[in-house]
Each structure stands twice: as structure tokens, then as C-alpha cells.
């Protein structure tokens, strides 16, 4: 039977069901089920978040000035962006403004996270969906060198000897039986299209990116005092500035600023010489694989971020754009008000929660987090061993957030489509340039590849923004302003009896919001709507499917028992838990369980 969803997808459950279930237990996991027709096309997709996300309930009664430290532990990847969102929410509730230097430093930190995350995502989590490192062993180093020089003439690491060395290192690694990171890929699947030389080039950059990323994170250590869990502060940033000091513990001096500057430059170089050329080169071989667009051609959402000036979140002041596009109408970009109870609502009709009032959508300020686990009548299997989920009933721990009733995609591609539609100068220039280079029409953006390319463009743009805010910070300090925190309202006695606030950021994976209610100096209610809640959302009360589900629709699978295409598209969203499609078997091998029913 074919059912059309209100957002325009034809769901057909008649074909064989494929279950990709990485159910792991703790940090946030996903299960995916699809129905595939006789020709291998996906005709129904069901995405299940199998993690209870109960941060809301453990923050009750805590000191709002501490909330950031808890939210930093939500996720194993992006600590800082949750912390930033949290301090913004509390500042918003209490009417606390931050100094200009704090805005610049926060922007540098947030941009650093975007850049780090995008590079790590592309090379270490996503590249292996396109690049075959085993095939790289067959490459001719000389031809690889020629390829490298052709795709990126200014990259210094390009000699045949260099590629031969890397190839030998890879060989040793593989021969010692430690394939480790590259273990259990579907390396002979025809979905891999690169010639061995491109595989060797990209695998080499995998290693170069590893070396770079450990430099990049040092910016968090310098401004946040430490990593991987940097310090944050309601009212500003916790690092004092003292440009005349030499090595005082924690204080920002010229030596540390110079270190930051050199890291920013290294990233700019890498993005220009390696990351972007790789995306163009690899993308060139996959130009005909334009699946995976899902909701991106019709409904995308961005909250915007990186305010030019402290405390000013008006849309024209944000370097990462804010806006919503619905019904595929790129000529109208709607403004987004995260306080408006009519705009953002979360539904739980297909989620394992219940609201006091059934079928209703709740704005996060009035959000409820009451678990209710029940399975539908068409379930196959048992409560503890689900063989096939019943998507007609409740089927996910992820709520279904909607913007004015619409399922939305968030993330780099959403930001770039909003920016492009708004005529944002830098973004439009990057997008049109890339499409021209690759000889692709604008519609090509709405794809898995488009998502991956938008991330690379954004990394490059964020590098330039980071330099801008670094220069701004240094200029401000030179003009005598060393202020980094506003502690006028630090004391809870200065707070109103009741207050509510919202913090917004653009996390690497997309729009992130924390909504807080404070009563008598303590947290009364705390709700996080994270990017993966938007993208991974289940169906809503109207039957609209979410972004992950939509993105898988109508994709052709080369071999249904090897879900390369499913992983490729899901990974392109950089799901909150990058490892969420892996489980470990008892002998330690990495493994994705795939069952065909």
C-alpha cells in the first residue's frame, strides 16, 4: 500500500524490510529500517533514536550558572557548543550582557569547533563512505602525485616519494592485522567509484587532517583553560586578558594570541589546499550520485549565529544566517523567532513520551519530558528484541520538533540554502563558484553530496570569520579594553524571582536551542532541542516524515545487504553521535548489523 505524506513522500512498505541496527547502549544511538523494492530502491524509511535523552530531568533544581558544565557532557563530540548555548540561555533569562571581547572569544571558540568538527567529520567519519583505503594500496604513487598537483597546485605535500611513504605505512598497518580504523568496510562494493590514486590521495589527507586537528583543539585550551572540557562562564568568558604578562597561569597574553593566530592560519591553508580541493575531486567522481536530498529542497531551518557585536542577535548582524524556508520556495526566507510558541513545537505522537494533552505540540519553554514506552500492534519481535518496529505507533526516543508544523532539515546545508536564498554575499559567492567549478546546476545542492560540500564551504568561510574576530579582539585589546566578563548579576540575589530565557547557536550539525526557566535561583525547567532532534525526528501527528527518513527515500542500493548508501546519507548529516551506526561484536570487530526480512 502506498501512502502519501503531507510533505509529499510516497511511502510503500510492500518491499523487503532491511534493518540496520547499531543499538548500542549509552551515548545516543540510532536504528534505521527501510523497505526496498525489487529494483533496490528505498520506498519507506524509519529512523529510530534508541537513546533516552534525559538531561532535562537531571538539571532540575541545579544552579543555572552551572548548567553549562552538565550540558558539556551530553554528547561525545561537541562539548563547547552546548556550553555556549547554555550560558546564552541563562544570560537571556537574567538580562545579562557580555563584553565585546567575550563575544569575539566566544565566536573564535565556536568557529573553531565548526572548523574542527567539519574537518574531522569529513576525513574521519564520512570519507570512508566515498573513499576506499584498501584500494589505495593499489595506487601508483607517481600518478597520485600528478593527481595531487592537478587538483591542488599549491599544496606542498605532493611528491611521489611522499605518497609512496604513506602507502607503505598503510601497507604495514594493514599487514600487521590492525586494519583497525578501516576494518569491516564494504570495500568491494560497486558503490565505491574512485580510482586507486584518488583513494590514496584522500587517505593521505586523512592522516594530514589527524595531525592538523590536534593543533586546532589547542585554541579551546588557550581560551577555555582546558580541553576536552573547556571552561565557560555566565556573563562572559573565564579567561582574563593581560597582554603584558608572560606566562601567567590562564591569562591571555601576546604569546598565546600569537599561537592562536598561527593555528587559524594553518586551518585556512588546509581548507584551501586540501579540504575543498578534495571535496571537488571526490565529488567529481560521484556527480551522478545525487541521492539523499530529502527535505533540503523544501524545508530548511537555521537559527543563525556568530553575532558581529556583543548581545545583538538581529538577523542582519549574524555571520551565519538565520531563516526558514518552506514549501521549496527559495524566494521567501521567513524570520525565525524561537520564543514564539506558534513557531517551534515538539510533538510526541510517534515518540516514547506522553504529554498531559494528547496530540498537542509544545513549545520548549512549556516542554514536558515524561517517558512512555509502548510499541505498536504491528511490531515484529518482542519488547526487548525488536525485529521490526511499528512506525504507525510510537517508535523513537527523539521528539518531533516542527517549525510552523513543518518538518525541517538543519545543518550546514540548511544554513547554506538559507544564506544562498537570502543573497548572503560570501555564501552566494562560494556556492555559485563551486557549482561552476563542478559544472552542476543549483538543484545538485539538494543531495547528500550537497550536504557534504556545504560543510566544506562552511569550514573555509568560518576560517575567514575566525581571522576577522581574532583581529577584532586584538584591536580592542590594543585600544585598552581588557574586559572579558560582566559579573554585575552574578549573585542570585540580583535575579528576579522567576525568569525564562533561550540560547541559540548553530552547532556544527545545525540549529541548537536550550530553553530554561529559572525560579528562586534554581532551574525549574530545561529543554534542549538539538540538531539531531530536528534531523532524526520521527513522524509527527500529521504523518510528515523527518529529515533522515526523507533523505533515504528513493535511493538506489547496489547491494541491499551492504547499506553503504544508507550510511553515506545518514553520515552526511553528521548525526550527533558519529559512532551511532557502529557496534562492537564480542571479539572486538567493528560491525554494523544488517538484517533483511
Amino acid at each position, binding site marked *: 500500500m502506498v501512502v502519501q505524506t503531507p510533505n509529499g513522500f510516497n511511502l510503500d512498505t510492500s518491499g523487503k524490510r532491511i534493518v540496520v541496527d547499531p543499538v*548500542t547502549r*549509552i551515548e545516543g544511538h540510532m536504528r534505521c529500517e527501510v523497505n526496498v523494492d525489487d529494483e533496490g530502491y528505498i520506498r519507506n524509511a524509519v529512523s529510530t533514536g534508541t537513546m533516552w535523552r534525559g538531561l532535562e530531568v537531571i538539571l532540575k533544581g541545579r544552579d543555572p550558572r552551572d548548567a553549562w558544565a*552538565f550540558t558539556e*557532557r551530553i554528547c561525545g563530540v561537541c562539548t563547547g557548543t552546548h556550553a555556549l548555548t547554555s550560558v546564552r540561555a541563562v544570560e537571556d533569562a537574567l538580562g545579562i550582557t557580555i563584553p565585546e571581547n567575550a563575544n569575539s572569544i566566544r565566536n573564535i571558540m565556536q568557529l573553531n569547533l565548526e572548523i574542527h568538527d567539519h574537518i574531522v567529520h569529513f576525513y574521519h567519519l564520512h570519507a570512508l563512505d566515498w573513499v576506499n583505503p584498501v584500494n589505495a594500496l593499489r595506487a601508483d604513487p607517481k600518478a597520485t602525485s600528478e593527481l595531487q598537483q592537478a587538483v591542488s597546485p599549491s599544496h606542498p605535500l605532493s611528491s611521489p616519494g611522499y605518497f609512496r611513504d604513506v602507502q607503505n*605505512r598503510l601497507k604495514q598497518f594493514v599487514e600487521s592485522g*590492525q586494519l583497525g580504523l578501516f576494518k569491516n568496510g564494504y570495500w568491494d562494493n560497486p558503490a565505491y567509484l574512485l580510482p586507486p590514486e584518488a583513494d590514496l590521495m584522500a587517505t593521505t589527507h586523512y592522516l594530514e587532517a589527524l595531525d592538523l586537528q*590536534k593543533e586546532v583543539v589547542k585554541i579551546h585550551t588557550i581560551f577555555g583553560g*582546558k580541553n*576536552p*572540557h573547556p571552561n565557560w562562564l555566565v556573563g562572559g568568558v573565564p579567561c582574563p586578558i593581560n597582554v603584558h604578562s608572560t606566562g601567567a597561569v590562564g591569562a591571555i597574553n601576546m604569546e598565546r594570541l600569537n599561537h592562536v593566530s598561527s593555528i587559524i592560519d594553518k586551518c585556512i591553508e588546509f581548507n584551501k589546499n586540501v579540504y575543498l580541493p578534495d571535496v571537488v575531486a571526490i565529488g567529481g567522481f560521484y556527480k551522478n550520485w545525487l541521492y539523499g536530498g530529502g527535505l533540503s529542497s523544501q524545508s530548511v531551518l537555521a537559527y543563525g549565529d556568530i553575532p558581529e557585536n556583543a548581545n545583538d542577535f538581529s538577523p542582519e548582524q549574524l555571520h551565519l544566517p538565520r531563516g526558514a524556508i518552506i514549501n521549496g520556495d527559495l524566494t521567501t526566507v521567513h524570520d525565525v523567532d524561537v520564543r514564539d510558541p506558534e513557531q517551534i513545537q515538539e510533538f510526541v505522537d510517534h515518540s516514547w513520551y506522553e504529554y498531559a494533552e494528547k496530540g498537542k505540540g509544545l513549545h520548549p519553554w512549556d516542554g514536558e519530558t515524561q517517558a512512555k514506552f509502548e510499541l505498536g500492534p504491528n511490531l515484529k519481535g518482542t519488547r526487548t528484541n525488536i525485529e521490526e518496529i511499528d512506525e504507525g505507533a510510537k517508535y523513537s526516543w527523539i521528539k518531533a520538533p516542527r517549525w510552523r508544523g513543518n518538518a525541517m532539515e538543519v545543518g550546514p546545508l540548511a544554513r547554506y540554502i538559507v544564506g544562498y536564498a537570502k543573497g548572503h554575499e560570501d555564501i552566494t559567492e562560494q556556492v555559485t563558484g563551486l557549482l561552476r567549478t563542478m559544472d552542476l546546476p543549483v538543484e545538485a545542492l539538494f543531495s547528500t553530496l550537497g550536504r557534504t560540500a556545504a560543510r566544506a564551504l562552511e569550514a573555509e568561510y568560518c576560517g575567514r570569520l575566525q581571522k576577522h574576530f581574532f583581529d577584532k579582539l586584538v584591536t580592542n585589546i590594543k585600544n585598552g579594553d581588557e574586559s572579558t566578563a560582566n559579573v554585575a548579576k552574578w549573585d542570585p540575589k540580583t535575579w528576579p524571582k522567576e525568569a525564562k530565557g533561550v540560547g541559540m547557536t548553530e552547532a556544527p550539525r545545525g540549529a541548537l536551542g536550550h530553553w530554561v526557566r529559572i525560579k528562586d535561583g534554581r532551574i525549574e525547567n530545561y529543554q534542549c532541542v538539538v540538531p539531531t532532534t530536528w534531523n532524526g525526528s520521527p513522524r509527527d501527528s500529521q504523518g510528515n516524515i523527518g529529515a533522515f527518513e526523507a533523505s533515504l527515500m528513493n535511493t538506489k542500493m547496489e547491494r541491499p545487504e551492504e547499506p553503504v548508501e544508507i550510511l553515506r546519507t545518514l553520515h552526511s548529516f553528521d548525526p550527533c553521535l558519529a559512532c551511532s551506526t557502529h557496534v562492537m561484536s564480542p571479539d572486538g570487530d567493528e560491525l554494523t548489523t544488517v538484517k533483511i526480512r
Partner: protein
Amino acid sequence: MTQAALVLGIGNVLWADEGFGVRCVETLAEKWAFGDNVRILDGGTQGLYLLPFLEEADILVVFDAVDYGLEPGTLKIVEGDAVPRFMGAKKMSLHQTGFQDVIATAQLMGYCPETLILIGCQPAEIEDYGGGLREVVAAQIAPAIDIALEKLRALGIHARPGRGDDRLLADPAILRQAYEEGRPSPEAACRTGDDRFFPAAD
């Protein structure tokens, strides 16, 4: 030449006994001080962010909760090549995949510490989001630290009693006491859910 050591606690403090490793390094830094060649780090559930720390170290001591089907509270010490294998043997949480990858990556890049020591503890309860350490596991913090000190001593690294360097540890708000004492009551914050992920407390 003096060897550099990294003493690392990993795990998620928000998931009851999953926080064992992090609580061990916290307690270690409260009671013992080392020279500049030793770093004490709360690694949380992070992966690649930990690479720069591994690169600087010759010796790596890891505290972690590991599920090896033993009696809750049993300590298990693993050394050398067995460490990455062990951490993947029976995966309990995603941070272990992450950390196994970190070691594999460090090996690939040629800067994995030469000496690897894992001090693991079998958890009693990890399905309690927002919860703290169970008694039987908390009781193993001191013995686990003793083992680490002894192993380090054998490698020529000596601790002296007193407060150690806590700059790379958790914010005071989520240190063990503040975290566990500040937990909302079951009435204020729901603690029950479904059988697989969030079982009702008995």
C-alpha cells in the same frame, strides 16, 4: 630521561558507574601530587580530542568502567597490546569505541604511548541517567588508585601526598559530591522508562 605519563579517566559521569574512571582521576588529584612529567586528565567521552595528550605521553594509565561480566566492583588490570583489544572486547558504551579508535589512530600515526595500563572496574549500574556511583564501585576508587600508584612507581614515577594538579579535571559543579548531592528527587525528575534502555528502579 624522565618518562612522561598521562593518567586518564574516561567515561560519562552522567550515567552512574560509567563515571568510575573520571571519579578516579578526581580522587587521585585530591590526594596525590606528581612532578611536571605527569598529567592527570578527565577525558570524559571524548575521542580524537585526546590525541594531543597521548602524543606527549610515554606511559598511559587509563581508569574506566569496563564490562567483562565479572562481579560488580571487581577490578581488572590489563597491560600492553591487550589494552585496545580489551576495550573492544565487550563494548559497554560508545566512549569505548571512541577510545579504541584513539589508540588505533595514535598507533597509525606512530605516537601511541609505549606503556599502556588499563585499570577497569566492573560496574553495578549504568542505566541510571543522572545517577552517581554505586557503593560497590565507589569502594574500588581507592584500591584502583593504589594499583596505579604502584604501577607508576615501578616505572620510576613517584607521587607525594597532597593536592595534585586538577586543572584538567571537571568543573566543580559536576565533581562527584556536588553532582550526587544535587540530584533531583525521583518525584521531581522521572527515573523510569522502558525495559531496554531505562528500566524501572527496583
